[in-house]
């Protein structure tokens, strides 16, 4: 997963086209329910199952992409 793909995913789930690579999910209209929709998409499209806590540590597209490419946990 690259930063662009993560940004597109955030934009889709948040229905917010303003999201950039450094946007914090929880400041851009996201909450825990929507966060799970990012995690299900990551699992489905990139084969990486992250926990909710993983996402709290990587709540921007840039951080999420690096967590995902860092490999499965």
């Amino acid at each position: 997963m690259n930063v662009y793909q993560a940004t597109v995913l955030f934009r889709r789930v948040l229905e917010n086209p303003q999201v950039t690579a450094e946007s914090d999910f929880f400041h851009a209209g996201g909450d825990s329910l929507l966060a799970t929709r990012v995690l299900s998409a990551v699992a489905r499209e990139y084969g990486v199952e992250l926990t909710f806590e993983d996402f709290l540590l990587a709540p921007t597209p840039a951080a999420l992409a690096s967590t995902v490419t860092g490999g499965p946990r």
Partner: protein
Amino acid sequence: MVGAGLAGLTAAADLAAAGVEITVLEARDRVGGRTHGIEVAPGAWADGGAAYLGDRHTELHKLMAGLGLAATPTAMDGGSRFALGGGEKTRAGRFPPLNAVALGELFDLLYDLTARVRPDAPWLTPGAAGLDAVTAAEWAAGALRHPDARLFFPLFLGEMMAADPASVSVLHMALYLRSGGGIRYLNAFSGGAQQDRVLGGAHQIAERLAAQLGARVRLNRPVRAIRQDGGGVSVHTGDGEEHRADAVVVAVPPLLAQSIDYRPGLPAPRATTATGRGCAVKVQLVYREPYWHAHGLSGWSVSATGPLLSTVDDSPPDAGAGVLTGFVTGAEAYRFAALDPAAREAETLRQVGELFPGLPPPDAVHVSDWVNEPYSRGCYAAVFGPGDWLRLGPGLRTPHGRVHWAGTETSTEFFGLMEGAIRSGHRVAAEVLSSHATLWREP
């Protein structure tokens, strides 16, 4: 006007303001319908019925402002307690200790369903017949694979719409979730449908509207029959009163509207044998203060087993009381409601003792059983079962001669919520006024 809930009183206020002579007949000895205040300490109130509102509930906010009522935020700071198998756990925030990917897959499916439903006319949704033929439980059995999704789905549905998955159609589930603003909005406190409460209690909305209407509101008048003839319509109450009118608005839930005797009869039913009661029992535990705050807890909990499937802090702000409100929803509401009061209290106290160890015994326990409430027949709202939207939907707002329909279940916007009731009230008042020329023309 038949019914002095939010829909009936909103419409009556609009009609009275337009100069229409109106009488409101209410079956109970109080106004407010599915809103009901419980005085938990002198001058401090909690909501035994409908309680929450969000910024999108624009008509409710307008009405409150006009009545001099303010909103107060729902306090959710602190950790949550979860009992979802394997003992009780404390977590920061509201996210349950379940597999996040599995919950995401559940929410993806629900999102797709809500996106698919046609919000203004669910019965015209592409594939409506298929969606209306299956229950949410049947859908879940086929669609959900992960045990955590299967565990969480009935809890989510109970919380969102007080429905047992076994009795709600997929089309209705999709409409309800869409109509309330989507799953994120309906689920959220801050930024969502539970952001605020009415300061001093939601029951004040109806009480203030009724005070303005004065003697036009008549209590203890259950309506049994509505008879139309060439010259008008007669409304008959339980004790034999007859009220003559040019037009009637029935602003009661569908199961109650269906129980009235209409002559001539209705061309389409208001409810069917598949139409269920919203399954909600609200339990309020009253303490001297919200002790859970001192333990870093918000009061929010979610449990896989009953009776209290969730709890939330419902303490009145700036008042000397801590209130923990428990929700008993879905199939569990029927079981719990059937218990005798001592058994209900014992089960409640046992569970609260496990969820919040060290909490002193409450000063009082109030149980609001909406399932068996004869003049509501369920809460939050009627649960449309298989086939209902296709059968009831097209005539939901179609007047039957001089008889018009209101109530939150006639609003495809915010169906089941206070906002839906108020919108239906404004809609029906405008409808009666615009029919005035033809409906009330002298022969």
